[in-house]
């Protein structure tokens, strides 16, 4: 079964994303910050990363930069952020990722983005 890494410092957001991922038939692995995410990425083959940008202890951008290091393959990344592209925050559209979604995002839209990234399970 495909593994999806959920990275967010907000517990209720992790629960929401993990529930949705399990409902889609994937395995959900959670990380509360960039450091934890990097450790998991370096030890486990992950098929998709759902990533928040602004977190303590290494933010999302740093995680993106370290993807694919070592012998691990580089999984696709969907950034889900509370920043809004409308206000020109931090040039979200220039991030080297699969897609960038601004919160809040409905389950259907999130499911669609996940399916586009790693297909049906």
């Amino acid at each position, binding site marked *: 079964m495909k593994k999806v890494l959920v990275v*967010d410092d*907000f*517990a*209720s*957001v992790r*629960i*929401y*994303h993990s*529930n*949705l991922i399990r*409902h889609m038939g994937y395995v959900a692995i959670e990380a509360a910050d960039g450091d934890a995410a990097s450790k998991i990425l370096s030890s486990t083959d992950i098929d998709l990363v759902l990533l928040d940008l*602004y977190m303590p202890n290494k933010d999302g951008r740093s995680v993106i930069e370290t993807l694919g290091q070592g012998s691990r393959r580089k999984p696709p990344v969907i950034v*889900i952020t*509370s920043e*809004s592209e*409308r*206000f020109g925050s931090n040039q979200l559209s220039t991030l080297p990722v699969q897609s960038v979604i601004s*919160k*809040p*995002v*409905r*389950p259907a839209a999130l499911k669609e983005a996940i399916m586009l990234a790693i297909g049906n399970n």
Partner: protein
Amino acid sequence: MKNVFKSIGFARGLPSKLVELSQQASRYSDQLYQFGQVTDKEFVILAESVSSIQTCIQNTIGQTQKLGESLDGCSEENAFRSAFEIGKRAIELVHSSSGVEFALSNQFELIDSLVSECETIKSEFDHNQVIFRSLATGFAIESARCDEEAQAVFRTVVSDFHRIDESIAKTLDSGFSELQAVLKEMDDIRRAWDAEFNGSENTVERQLESIREEIHRIETILTPCVADCSDIKNTLEEIELAISPIIICLQNQDIVRQKLEHIANALNEIERIASPACKGKPRKQRLSELFAHSSVQGRQLDYAVDLLAETGEQAFSSIADAQAKSDAVAQRLGALQDTLFHQFGTSSIAFAFGQQIEELSRITEFSGRVHQQLAQIDQRIVKVVQVYNREISSRQQDIRLIALNAQVAASRLEEGGALERLAQETSVVSEANQRTSKKLSSALENALEQLRSTRESSVAHVEVLNKDRQELFESSQDIDARLQHHISGTISETRALLDASNRNASTIQDLPQRLSFPQRLQTEFTPIRETLREINAISLKLVGKRELPQEVQASLNEHRERYTMQTERALHDQTFAQISNASGFTSFN
């Protein structure tokens, strides 16, 4: 000859004049010492004024830097950081509240799916019942060919078939009617939830947009304030550099004081050598010494007076200019603080962000009620299906018994083959119904397991949401209080700086009155300069010169601005040598 006697007669008055002047010069030496000490005190006042301006500037630089950092979004010291984080947390909460809707939707779908499966299974039962009825008809037809006794037996069988068929049909109808009622109720709950959630969702999304716009508005206000702070700081640093002429003036005062003491010593020396130089036979060497002293010290005095006058004027000008600029900058900083207070001093940014998601509490509360209602629906479905299964199981036992009796009765008949087959078919139908019952139980068990799991996860999620929302509210008030306190604090500090700057301004205004050395330079030093010039002129004449030799003039002028103890001594010796070696000296008896 006449000229010689005339010059001798002229020359006879000069030595006594020289002695008189040298004595007068010696009396000026005390004046020079005292001038140095008094100007010391006056320059202490100047130094203190400079020091207080510098302190004010330094403090204002520090305050400006601190203010800039508290407004700068990239700085760790940003005072608005916590408030912005509340806004972002509010967005996160709203986002994760979609998970509540998602979990409830799953539960609705599971129940829908269960009821749909029950209906599919019901159609299997219905199909079995059709077979059962046709078996009853079969028994009726076949038993009509038998004898009376057999007919009586099979009439009972058929009658039992009809009874059981009615019972099963009744059970199926009532069970599935109940399921339909439950489904309708669930639809009502779903519609109510959709109305609540979708109605809230629009409000919440509007409020999220408000949060984002507010964050953007605040950032738009703060960005130029940060630039202003940087500019103010740079201006202050430039003002600080512009104070250097005052520092130079203070240093020059010390140089001048030393020179004046040195000149005072020279005046005493002039008096010491003037009398023996002019008693009896004027001595060329001593006169040359007098000339050298008066030349060098006269120029020293000129230079000292000019230096002090010039740098004093620069110092006054610089200090007043620095104070005015510093004051203007402090006013600018004050205006910036006033803007910040006006915009944010009494606002409740974090609290407003927290309040914007008040709708969430309605969603989570409503979802709690929906969870309870769905739990009750689960239980009703379980009860319906359990009762139904019990009834069906019981009826299947009856059917098996009837089938057995029919089998036995049929086996006794000579032509009972068809009836036996019917009895076997009846057993098959009974087994089919058993399997269908088990299928129903299994479907129910699976669905309940999934429902329970989804509900537990959803309830846990709602608990986390409620907890986070509560924490957000609680921290928002504290954060606003801290921001207001910070702004008030920086305003108080800026006002203190403004007050200090105003005090400096009034002190500096009084400076020209408190410092009298510019006026005294002229009144006190002019007579001394005149005396030295006279001594110089007379001693020149007494060594036999009417005018200063050009090489002496050149040497004296060359070093005017670069006198140190060593150069002064060298110049003195050089002048002495040049004059004493010059021809034309007349010795007088």
